[in-house]
């Protein structure tokens, strides 16, 4: 007989996610993922000036802040056939690198690490042994015995106060935690250091975009002008500031993040390198153009699709094709004019809220009916995983460098077969490796910007700023790779106003409910087969769900075989 579990709220994510799972013989047999919050922003941007939309949709997410803004200006520029100046492309790339560096580091230490790191165990560590271990990991200077001893004292003080704050009611002491006390202490120290570091790297957004979170963008380029002879513009002082922040970011990634990732990966690889794989198809739109947004071959991250984990072939993807990407609402709380079974290409997408679930407060959702605010996107009717793992796999299969060599070297260092990539650990490792690449690319973009500024200071294409020359009707798609995966914005413009706006966001691919045929999306699929030591404690569920870095509000529940949904209850 099965045991059911509900996890709601899933914490250490962005947004509201609920997960329900059915556990049999210590393993997850069924899982349901539900997004439990909606705001209807696609409805709100209708009839607005297309130049304003980046600001509205930017507010979809303050964690991968700026990614929706970037994708929105790309969509409008695509509709009007605007090519931005080289400087603007490089500044946008630098800002996108900043999002990756910030987001991935914060995800690893502050959203994901506590799934692998036992904070209370760090109190048992010998600071001298932790120091020796840390010095073997890298050259990071904060590694003395005294340093670790101070960190330990600080944590001890919090514990002894009886007020554990964010650490209260954690899963400390759970047998699935495998790090030594010294490894835990190193990780806790770096948790605190990353917390302090992360507030610096975002200053690159502040320099070019005026603030962070939610920096400014404009259609046609970037708002900050370059003038090397002016205090009020991007000048050598501002550029030197950016360079310093990029250098510090690279050092932190190379000397702290990657060594910690390898340390933790090395301990957990044998269990978690075999589970959590989920759907076997991977989508990446690619990103970081070096010769313009329209020259996909110039992207640092290639575009394409992997099917059935076959790394010998990369399939093309065309976001404009009405036959490829479609969104379904069979299990989602929306209404389509063509009925519940229809699939709509986003250009013709509809957003009409239609809640049919139980009235809150409720204990259970009905999984035989609609059960989520997340729509179900499909590529040629197939579920796709998106995110760092998809990007690295597409790059690997396409033979792109430096991705391929980096993946091969890492597998060798951890003594793992290529199949281990399709797992919870594979996903977490791909995110770290990608961060290393982005830290290097950011310095390349910086050098290119310096070179370009010598002969060209333009930041904006003015031709189409005033709406007078716009075509009466236009449509465009903006594609990007947000830290969490493939992101697409589709805009239709008529009489200088937005006629329709649809977004297919990364977590929509990953967290969506099943489709009409019963095919599972990435979260639900990845949980199947996951061992659960104690159904009252959802640590293992968090590991796999967090490996995707979800960006929504969801919840997890357990349900029984008769279809009645119960909150944390045995059905023996």
């Amino acid at each position, binding site marked *: 007989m099965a045991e059911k579990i509900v996890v709601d709220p899933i914490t*250490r994510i962005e947004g509201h996610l609920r997960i329900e799972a059915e556990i049999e013989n210590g393993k997850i047999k069924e899982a349901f993922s539900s997004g439990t919050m*909606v705001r209807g922003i696609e409805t709100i941007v209708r009839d607005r000036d297309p130049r304003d939309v980046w600001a509205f949709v930017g507010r979809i997410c303050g964690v991968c802040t700026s990614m929706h803004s970037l994708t929105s200006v790309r969509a409008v520029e695509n509709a009007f056939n605007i090519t931005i100046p080289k400087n603007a492309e490089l500044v946008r790339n630098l800002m996108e690198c900043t999002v990756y560096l910030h987001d991935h580091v914060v995800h690893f230490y502050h959203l994901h690490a506590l799934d692998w790191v036992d904070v209370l165990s760090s109190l048992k560590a010998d600071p001298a042994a932790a120091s020796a271990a840390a010095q073997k990991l890298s050259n990071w200077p904060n590694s003395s015995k005294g340093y670790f001893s101070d960190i330990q004292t600080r944590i001890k003080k919090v514990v002894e106060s009886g007020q554990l704050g964010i650490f209260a009611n954690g899963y400390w002491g759970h047998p699935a935690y495998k790090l030594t006390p010294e490894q835990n202490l190193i990780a806790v120290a770096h948790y605190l250091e990353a917390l302090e570091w992360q507030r610096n790297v975002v200053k690159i957004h502040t320099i070019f975009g005026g603030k962070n979170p939610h920096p400014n963008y404009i259609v046609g380029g970037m708002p900050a002008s370059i003038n090397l002879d002016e205090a009020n513009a991007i000048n050598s002082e501002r550029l030197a500031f950016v360079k310093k922040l990029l250098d510090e970011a690279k050092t932190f990634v190379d000397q702290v993040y990657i060594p910690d990732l390898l340390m933790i990966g090395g301990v957990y690889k044998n269990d978690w390198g075999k589970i959590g794989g989920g759907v076997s198809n991977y989508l990446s739109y690619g990103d970081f153009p070096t010769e313009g947004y329209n020259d996909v071959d110039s992207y640092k991250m290639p575009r394409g699709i992997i099917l059935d984990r076959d790394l010998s072939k990369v399939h093309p993807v065309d976001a404009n094709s009405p036959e490829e990407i479609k969104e379904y609402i069979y299990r989602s709380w929306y209404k389509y004019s063509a009925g519940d079974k229809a699939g709509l290409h986003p250009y013709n997408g509809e957003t009409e*809220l239609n809640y049919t679930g139980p009235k809150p407060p409720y204990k259970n959702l009905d999984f035989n009916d609609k059960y989520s605010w997340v729509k179900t996107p499909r590529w040629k009717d197939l579920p796709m995983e998106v995110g760092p793992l998809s990007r690295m796999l597409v790059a690997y299969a396409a033979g792109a460098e430096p991705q391929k060599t980096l993946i091969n070297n890492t597998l060798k260092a951890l003594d793992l077969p290529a199949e281990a990539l399709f797992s919870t650990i594979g996903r977490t490792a791909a995110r770290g490796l990608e961060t290393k690449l982005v830290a290097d690319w950011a310095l390349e973009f910086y050098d290119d910007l310096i070179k370009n500024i010598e002969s060209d200071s333009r930041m*904006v294409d003015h031709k189409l700023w005033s709406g007078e020359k716009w075509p009466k009707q236009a449509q465009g798609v903006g594609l990007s790779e947000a830290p969490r995966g493939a992101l697409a914005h589709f805009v239709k413009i008529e009489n200088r106003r937005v006629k329709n706006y649809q977004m297919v966001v990364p977590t929509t691919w990953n967290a969506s409910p099943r489709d009409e045929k019963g095919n599972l999306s990435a979260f639900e699929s990845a949980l199947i087969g996951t061992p659960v030591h104690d159904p009252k404690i959802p640590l293992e569920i968090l590991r796999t769900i967090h490996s995707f870095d979800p960006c929504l509000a969801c919840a997890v529940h357990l349900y029984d075989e008769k279809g009645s949904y119960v909150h944390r209850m045995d059905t023996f």
Partner: protein
Amino acid sequence: MTNRKKLTVYEECLKKGVSRRDFLRFCAATATIFGLKASAAAQIAEALEKKSRIPIIWLHLQECTCCSESFIRTSHPILSTLLFDQVSLDYTETLMAPAGEQAEKSKHDTMEKYKGEYLLMVEGSIPVKNEAYCCINGKSAKQIIEEAAENAKAVIAWGNCASSGCVQAANPNPTGAKPVHKIIKRKPVINVPGCPPIAEVMAGVCVHLLTFGRIPQLDSLRRPKAFYSRRVHDTCYRRANFDAGLFVKSFDDENAKRGYCLYEMGCRGPSTYNSCGIIKWNEGVSYPIQSGHPCLGCSEDGFWDNSPFYERNPTLNAYGIEATADQIGLAIGAATAAGIAAHAVTTNIRKKKLIKNEE
């Protein structure tokens, strides 16, 4: 909160008839559980006899987490100092270790143990058109906030979502998003607007509460005067260009490259109350105008519907909270000269009103 009579854990034990011997035994047991040396028991006892850090419950409703993201970027104090030395952030879905039932337990433990003492911080708006538009653990946002506010000492509404509904409340407000003060009537609500608020402003509000033990002085819109009594326009370093009639006409034009005033590009600085020009963003690095973009007015109620953003809007409440530009009979958005004249007139009106208010 100046005369806070919060009982320490030890005092609570005494009140409940627990003897000192049992209390010390509990401390020793705690030390064992955490794998500490026996000597730690004395330290635990000492800490529990002292006053506790202020407990905080931070709710996430209809939001994008930008307020939490801004908060973690604070530079003075830095977040770890705040979290581990000054407050006890017992519930925040973004950072807390536990999930599901254990997360709910953290919230309920604090609500019971620190009844009337904890601070409630809210990020996000509350949908009322259908409560199912935002649910956590099966409860609606409205149910959650009403329950958590019941025994809170005070409520802080972070950001534009919680203080005025923000982007989801923009026309046509499909989910019926409401700010906190429209739902919670019986508790003091401090509005800290902005999308998001500046990190140091958020930390500043916390520090004021902790250091001085009372709510900072608020204006009529419940905003802390320390951070929201000045218009961005009045504190803008480009203000001299406005006064001299030097304006950017188009992004990246020659005037933009000289850092002239962005008023004609739609800057909302003249109608926006915030600290961007003074404290600036991310440890004082820059702010939107300094980086070439007009102010969007993100700390103002209903700023999303004062669009298009890149045009002056004659119906905009352009010169302060007293009157719209149209009401004082001047057409804005036509000639800049008229704009400057209107600006001067309304500034004077505003000053007079302020003087009157002070009296």
